[in-house]
């Protein structure tokens, strides 16, 4: 029985899923950092 | 239950009241006293937390910190007893559109556990001058009549304290005159009234005390005699303009 393809597919999905989630987390982090930068900028301008 | 009932002459006592959730602070440290029979007008820009203040005092939502006593009852604990003492009027009428005024009021009377819901309903309908139309569907009523009916609804159980949340919104001149008359009458009957509004002349005319709420705090709280209308107007418009400006920053 040679079903390496199935094993590969399952493995790829698991890793793909985890990596995708980590990627979205990164994206969200980046958005937050941008927000923070903007805030700092406006604060320093005023102060 | 008797223990926490304090028969002082204060109708409303608020100490360092806060309502926050995570970062959202709707009410951020308000303290004031209101004696029985006094009329307080609360002004403030949109989003200043006026509605939240009323919701806390009416026991609709819990404060995060601080205490509030309404009619001598701790707002958090004295649930039922306190609710019998208060009536609330907001711009939503809280009336079932497919029922008649009588049915609406009888239903409410049963919920309040009144002894004679029918008689009480008739009486308050007489008070607000809607008795002739007591058997028409509420859906057919005009805005002014609805407002009168929602006053009837709020005073059905004869509360000693009334909360009004922007009652003048969306009323035409005639309807708001009717509302003013009703409020005046209630004030004369020594009901304690707390009203939030945007209508400066109206609000100042009737009240004993004035408050300006900005960003969840009372920026101003005085007897009405101490306030000149012009000064207050400038202060109010400044607050509103600042608010709009900062709202703009937030959304960008």
């Amino acid at each position: 029985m040679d079903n390496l393809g199935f094993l590969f597919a399952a493995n790829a999905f698991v890793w793909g899923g985890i990596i995708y989630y980590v990627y979205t987390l990164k994206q969200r982090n980046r958005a937050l950092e941008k927000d923070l930068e903007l805030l700092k900028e406006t604060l320093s301008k005023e102060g | 239950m008797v223990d926490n009932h304090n028969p002082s002459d204060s109708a409303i006592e608020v100490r360092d009241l806060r309502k926050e959730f995570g970062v959202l602070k709707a009410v951020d440290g308000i303290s004031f006293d209101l004696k029985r029979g006094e009329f307080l007008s609360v002004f403030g820009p949109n989003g200043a937390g006026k509605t939240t203040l009323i919701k806390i005092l009416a026991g609709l939502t819990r404060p995060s910190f601080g205490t509030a006593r309404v009619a001598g009852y701790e707002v958090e604990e004295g649930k039922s007893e306190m609710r019998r003492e208060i009536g609330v009027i907001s711009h939503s009428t809280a009336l079932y559109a497919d029922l008649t005024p009588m049915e609406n009021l009888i239903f409410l009377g049963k919920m309040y556990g009144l002894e004679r819901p029918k008689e009480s309903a008739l009486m308050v309908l007489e008070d607000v001058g809607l008795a002739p139309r007591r058997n028409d569907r509420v859906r057919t009523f005009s805005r002014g009549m609805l407002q009168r009916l929602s006053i009837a609804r709020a005073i059905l159980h004869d509360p000693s304290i009334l909360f009004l949340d922007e009652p003048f919104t969306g009323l035409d001149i005639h309807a708001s005159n009717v509302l003013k008359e009703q409020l005046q009458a209630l004030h004369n009957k020594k009901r304690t009234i707390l009203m939030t509004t945007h209508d400066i002349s109206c609000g100042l005319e009737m009240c004993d005390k004035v408050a300006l709420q900005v960003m969840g705090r009372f920026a101003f709280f005085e007897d009405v005699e101490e306030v000149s209308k012009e000064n207050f107007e400038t202060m109010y418009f400044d607050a509103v303009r600042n608010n709009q400006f900062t709202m703009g920053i937030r959304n960008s």
Partner: protein
Amino acid sequence: MNLFLSQISAIVWKDFVTELKTRELLSAMFIFALLVILIFIFSVNLSVVKANEVGPGILWVAFLFSGTIGLNRSFMLEKENGCLMGLILVPADRTAIYFGKLISNFVFLSIMELFILPLFMIFFNIDLLAHLLPLLLVIFLGTLGFCALGTLLSSLASNLKTREIMLPILLYPLLVPIVIGVVRMTGQVLAGEPLSEMMNWIGLTASFDIIYIGVSIMTIDHILEE
């Protein structure tokens, strides 16, 4: 306690008076259930499939779909003009409001089901009268469970912007045990099996009813808060 009961009955009375005047809810639910049954009849070939096998499923799908319409409508009535807020202001225990709405939802849905049953009997050519009592018990258990969870979730969904969509999305996955249970029981009852043969299903449905009424009593305070 007396006030508690009279508050519950006041809410039920109010819903009935409204329904008597408008006649919107029952007729809409009835017609909708009828349409669901018709569409299912067109989608299965009754000359191939036995009516006894597909009938119970179709019947319950019709009940649940039109029941969802009823739940949506019932809380729309309370949301319109901010009536729900007025109800929360009343010196009533929140559970009184929950039970009042639960009972009126339950009674409306039951009335609709009683109208549908004879039509079901005719369309599918199944003799219901022979097993009427066990059938009514099954319908009672299923409808009660549906209304117990449905009343809780529709009071929750009524504050959302997309309440008509969110109610079924929240409700249907949670209803799976009830759906499987009542469809299986109805099938067995119609096949003439005695109730004692399906005690496990009766136990499952009854515990669903009890668990969700209990959870609702404990959590309704947190939902009916502005």
